[in-house]
């Protein structure tokens, strides 16, 4: 290829590159936040039209250099932040998954709490019924009747029925990790018991549970219903409260 041909090809390449650059920039919105006069200042006057070979070559070289610098800066940034960003991106699904699991557990717990309240109320009623029935049987069954081993009457059958139902209910509760809170004779625990009555009793340690008025229950280690108890106080202090 002659020098003249080479020169013509170079001219054509540069002309096409210049045209492409102008078209590409014309399609883009100018960056926001930059005053319009700054753009006006950047536009070349007819006298300093940069579309000569030297200016274009210098601009292309500067652009290449800028791209190299940007590439290096990006690599440094990537190396610095890489592990953290990667960990964060990897952790995000895990965090979302944990949050969903927490929410699902909350919903499940709320639904189960309703059923549990019903079951515990049923258990309380059955226990009260059993106590009454047992008291009735004990009253009706005197010494002679016990000695003569009278056949079971309806009340005794009722007691048996209560007992069987309670055993079945207790098994179901135990299987679901619901346990009655042990209270009687133990020290008062405000996280699992509610004091509904207090009695001054110097003969027992302060805070001893004297009587359980209503059983409490815990589920998975948390008190779902505190036990209502009567508690001993060795000696009352003066009230300083509110």
């Amino acid at each position, binding site marked *: 290829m002659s020098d003249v041909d080479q020169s013509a090809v170079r001219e054509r390449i540069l002309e096409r590159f210049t045209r492409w650059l102008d078209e590409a920039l014309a399609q883009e919105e100018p960056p926001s936040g930059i005053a319009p006069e700054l753009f006006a200042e950047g536009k070349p006057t007819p006298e300093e039209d940069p579309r000569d070979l030297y200016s274009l070559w210098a601009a292309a070289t500067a652009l290449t250099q800028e791209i190299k610098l940007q590439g290096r800066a990006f690599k440094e940034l990537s190396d610095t932040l890489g592990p953290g960003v990667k960990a964060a991106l990897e952790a995000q699904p895990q965090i979302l998954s944990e949050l969903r699991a927490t929410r699902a557990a909350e919903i499940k717990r709320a639904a189960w*709490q309703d059923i549990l309240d019903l079951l515990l109320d049923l258990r309380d009623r059955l226990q009260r019924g059993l106590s009454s029935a047992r008291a009735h049987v004990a009253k009706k069954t005197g010494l002679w009747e016990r000695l003569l081993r009278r056949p079971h009457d309806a009340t005794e059958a009722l007691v048996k029925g209560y007992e069987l139902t309670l055993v079945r209910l207790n098994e179901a509760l135990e299987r679901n990790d619901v346990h009655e809170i042990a209270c009687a004779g133990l020290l008062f625990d*405000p996280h699992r018991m509610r004091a509904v009555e207090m009695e001054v009793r110097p003969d027992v340690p302060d805070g001893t549970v004297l009587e359980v008025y209503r059983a409490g229950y815990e589920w998975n280690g948390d008190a779902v219903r505190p036990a209502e108890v009567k508690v001993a106080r060795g000696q009352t202090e003066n009230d300083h409260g509110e």
Partner: protein
Amino acid sequence: MVSDDLIVGIDLGTTNSEIAAFVEGRVQVLGPGATRMLPSCVGISPSGALLIGESARNQQILYPERTVRSVKRKMGSPETIRLADRTFTPQELSALILRELAEWGTRSLGRPVRKAVITVPAYFSDAQRNATREAGALAGLDVVRIFNEPTAASLAYGHGDGRRRTLMIYDLGGGTFDVSIVTTEKDVTEVLASHGNTQLGGDDFDQLLLERLLAAIQNRHGIDLRQGHRVAN
């Protein structure tokens, strides 16, 4: 939403307190249990453990000198409150309740709760509002606004169509009863008047119902359940 953008709303009540946040497009009351209410009660157990909420309320009958309720009534006053061998200001006790609520929020949302709007009765004085703000700061919260309770209620129930309305808002709490007349228009709520009874609430209704039942049982069956009858247990 990053943690710092999250602002929770706190109802620091006389009897019970609650925390809520606007998440996933709706207001959600946060916290454990079915009611998600924290009794506004603070106590110290005989072993020296700090009790906040239900555990404190559970010991109130047993250790009244170690338990305090209705701290809100004392907010803004120079009064101090003695619990066991320690003395607290009302702000400090309220801060314990606020901190517990913030922990509820953090656990429910899975991110730290740092900013809060706290509601107060419309009739609260500047001193009472400042005390509430101070309690929030003591709890480690950035209290971005102290909001009138009736204003919060009007925003919750009347927000939307932008029309001007004059409303009566009543707040029947456990220990107090407040009534406010407000006008709302677009996002602006103006409290025209507010008044209340700080010694009247749902607890008083419960007590009256109980007395009525006791009297009815005594009249019909001749049994006085106040005298420690087994059934009353």
